[in-house]
């Protein structure tokens, strides 16, 4: 059995020449302190003193007694306890000085700052106790734990906004502009699209009728787009146009040299 527990440290043996104030032992046995403010609050509450009307001399005397006991017990005393001791001594001396009326307004009650700090600490000390009594998961609150059915989890592809793609494209253009020989040509997109459609339509080992590639319903501009697409594909040697007789039907097929046609 430790003799006392002070600030979490077990005290097994009492120093022989130690004078212990009558109630000090009781205090040490009762609880540990979270610092000088906590100790002061204990002294105040134990004697039912009004925090706003602190008998500073008496409180200082009691405080010093406890601090001395702690030092005698050779506990590692936090520096904060000594700072508080000095502060108490200073307040005490200022309380003793006669206060000329005209200085009152400037200095006010010498205890004011200490009282403010004590109250401030006390409200959070109370708040800590309140939090400790809140319902808590695993103690008062038990979320349900229900088994899941068999799941097939899908991995979804990212979402993309058109603007994201356009922004990316603008940046490529800006970068590409730095290389002159990489000028990006500006065929209308409809031609580009039509090139892809034609390539997907025609077959490698089978001729497609040239006229089948045109859709009259698209009107003149549609026909022109298809023609431009065919010419561009021809230029890039991606297709072959074959006409066996003059004025005979024209056939289109994937250029011989190109291995493997469409992927579809």
């Amino acid at each position, binding site marked *: 059995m430790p003799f006392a527990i002070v600030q979490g440290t077990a005290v097994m043996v009492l120093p022989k020449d130690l004078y212990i104030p009558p109630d000090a032992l009781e205090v040490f046995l009762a609880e540990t302190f*979270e*610092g*000088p*403010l*906590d100790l002061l609050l204990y002294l105040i509450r134990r004697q039912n003193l009004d*925090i*706003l*009307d602190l008998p500073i001399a008496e409180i200082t005397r009691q405080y010093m007694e406890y601090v001395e006991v702690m030092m005698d017990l050779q506990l590692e005393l*936090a520096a*904060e306890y000594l700072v*508080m001791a000095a502060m108490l001594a200073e307040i005490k001396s200022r309380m003793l000085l006669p206060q000329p009326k005209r200085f*009152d*307004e400037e200095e*006010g*009650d010498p*205890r*004011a*700052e200490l*009282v*403010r*700090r004590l*109250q*401030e*600490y*006390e*409200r*959070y*000390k*109370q*708040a*800590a*106790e*309140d*939090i*400790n009594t*809140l*319902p*808590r*998961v*695993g*103690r*008062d*609150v*038990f*979320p*349900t734990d*229900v088994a*899941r*059915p068999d799941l097939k989890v899908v991995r979804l592809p990212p979402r993309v906004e058109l603007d994201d793609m356009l922004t990316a494209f603008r940046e490529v253009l800006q970068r590409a502009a730095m290389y002159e020989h990489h000028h990006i040509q500006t065929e209308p997109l409809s031609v580009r699209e039509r090139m892809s459609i034609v390539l997907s339509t025609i077959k490698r080992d089978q001729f497609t009728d040239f006229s089948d590639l045109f859709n009259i319903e698209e009107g003149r501009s549609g026909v022109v787009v298809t023609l431009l697409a065919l010419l561009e594909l021809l230029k890039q040697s991606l297709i072959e146009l074959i006409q066996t007789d003059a004025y005979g039907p024209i056939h289109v097929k994937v250029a011989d040299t190109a291995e493997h046609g469409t992927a579809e």
Partner: protein
Amino acid sequence: MNTQELKHIIEAVLFAAESPLSMNQLTGLFQADNAPEPSTIKQALTMIQEDCADRSIELKEVGSGYRFQVKQDYAQWVAKLWEERPARYSRATLETLALIAYRQPITRGEIEDVRGVSVSSQIIKSLIERDWIKVVGHRDVPGKPALYATTREFLDYFNLKSLDELPSLAELRDIDAINAELELVMPEDRQPADVEADDQTGIAGEDSFATDSPELTATEEIDEPLSAEN
């Protein structure tokens, strides 16, 4: 999809989820073009809540969303099954947590000012590891100390929907005001400095109350409280 079916889906998902589900997550279950209105989902949640009246569980809204939990009337029975005793927290830990909860965003130095003793790194570390607090910014003073705030997990753990639900702080009484009454001195005698300090504390406490989601606002506030105090 009719309301009954919607209710069943939401119930199923809430039961299967490992943590509370927010309205966003519930809405996100459905195809964007076919998602029920938030008000419809809210309605289904209310119906589920009503269904629980005669059962031993309830649907509770906490910080990060909705979850089913055993009603506290039955907690004692459930606790019998729990082998692990719930953790106890030291006063130092609880006081530090209280200061962060009520005064967020707050630095370690500011916590130490109120408590009158130093706060060990271990306490801060363990609170962060528990996901109860997090760093939301840095105060613009020498050393750039971290500003701490509580998380949604903190609210979840303590069964709270928002910081508003924390017990309210005790009122501060003003020594000069009391003295003024006792000594029948003119009320103007209140020290401007003291009044200001008290007011600020009051404001700080209430301000952090008012924000539902400290995470979101905290970053904006980083510079504000400082300049107000210094």
